[in-house]
């Protein structure tokens, strides 16, 4: 059985290549929304923060750090997805109406 580290490195390597290929195809027109979208997506770190905060017998320190981390990550998720959508709504072809 490969170790967690090996598996993790495989996943990391493949995800990086997928990321490079997919991002390369994004039109420069949309680079700003792209950045706010990837930002929202990487706020998936909220999952780690939830696990830390919600662990049984978490210390007060854990809870406080986790609380701040969840707040920061959720702010990113909410504002990131919403502002990306708000920007994308502005991109219209000629003659297209709102």
């Amino acid at each position, binding site marked *: 059985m490969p170790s967690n*580290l090996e598996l*993790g490195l495989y*996943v*990391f390597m493949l*995800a*990086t290549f*997928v990321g*490079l290929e997919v*991002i390369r*195809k*994004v*039109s*420069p*027109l*949309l*680079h*700003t929304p792209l950045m*706010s*979208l*990837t*930002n*929202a*997506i*990487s*706020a*998936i*770190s*909220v*999952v*780690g923060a939830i696990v*830390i905060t*919600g*662990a049984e017998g*978490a210390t007060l320190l*854990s*809870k406080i*750090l*986790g*609380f*701040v*981390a*969840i*707040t*920061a*990550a*959720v*702010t*990113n*998720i909410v*504002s990131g997805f919403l*502002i990306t*959508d708000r*920007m*994308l*709504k*502005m*991109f*219209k*072809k*000629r003659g297209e109406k709102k």
Partner: protein
Amino acid sequence: MMAHLVNYIYIVSAALFILSLKWMNSPASARRGVFAGETGMLLAVSGTLLAQNIHNWTWILSAFFIGTAVGIPIAYIMPMTAVPQRTALSHACGALAAALVGTAEFYRSNQLHQPLQTFEMVALVLETLLGFLTFTGSLMAMGKLQEVLPQRPITYKHQNVINFTLFAIAAGLGVRLILAPTDMWIFPVFAGLALLFGVLLIIPIGGADMPTVIALLNSYAGLSACAMGFALDNKLLIIAGALDGSSGLILSIIMCKAMNRSFTNVLFGAFGQVQAGKAAVEQRSYRSASAEEAAAILDSAGSVIIVPGYGLAVAQAQHKIRELFDNLTRRGVDVKFAIHPVAGRMPGHMNVLLAEADIPYDKLSEMDDINSEFPQCDVALVIGANDVTNPGARTDKTSPIYGMPILDVDKACTVMVIKRSMSPGFAGIDNDLYYMDKTLMLFGDAKAFVSEILKELPARVGA
């Protein structure tokens, strides 16, 4: 049962995240991309909440509540000109979240007397190092973009030596932590140094380099989330972090190429030094024109390429430009916009600003696509852009921007430049374009001048 199920949910989420970025390849499918991302996030978060035997619900739910309450107004109130600041802020938030989770994980393992494995410690050290330095670094970038901090590079003697030494000490402490994870006293010192290094890394970087810096910090924030994935053995975090990291990397490479700079040059070069010895500029002659003359030239043109720069956004002239675009288009003039990659304050920023003013995105052309069209174009109208139009970048080897890819504005039949005065721009470099015989300087505020041109134009309908 649920504990196993959540792993499958994570796989679906990861696929949705990849699709989400894939759909960003065209404005037609991009909003579907956002939806895919939201779905992936919702699945992952609810899966985690249901499956992981979660306690302390009050803490978690109140954090969710506060985050949402802060996030919604940010998304809707933030003006589009301030999007770079918001992006910097969100890099700071993301990095802070990763760093704090790492910190909590470190103290927990010590408190439970379950030392982390070496590779987990490596991941944790990387996570907190990148997280803390990106946190303060992004705050500094935000301060510069918001103009709370001076835009000019802040430099002092032996800056690079001091920064490097500081980073070396932080890295050394990190290694020490990996070897001796129970040495609790090291951690706060290590974290403090990382925070300080983030500040020192960004303050010497000038406002003009912010697009690269933001993209680079984006990459760091992603990598720090990725390291968290290794520390917590969570593949979804590794994938999402790697996607974010590679996105930031690609964008910063694009920005560097667009300015013909290298990473090291942006980070350690202190662009400000270029300004020295630029004072002695000889007086050269140029031609200027009034709004009436400019309107007459635009009226008789068959094709116009507008070259917007950040100065246009500063003057809040986007909507006036749209009116000019509409007016000329109605007369059958072919109007396009030439967007240099560093035209705004972050990658793609100018496109968003013009799209907000209802300019159709199929009229926004990238540098490589439009450069071949300048020689056939009747009028190139430069508004608020300077260095990206400087032909000296092609020919003058002594110019600090030599080699930077530029828009070939000088090849158009007639060039008109709206500018406040002849004073050199942000980087302090004189622009040969302004002294060419075919160039007309239109002096004034971008918004006011375009309004005046518009006033002159309707009078000519049918004349």
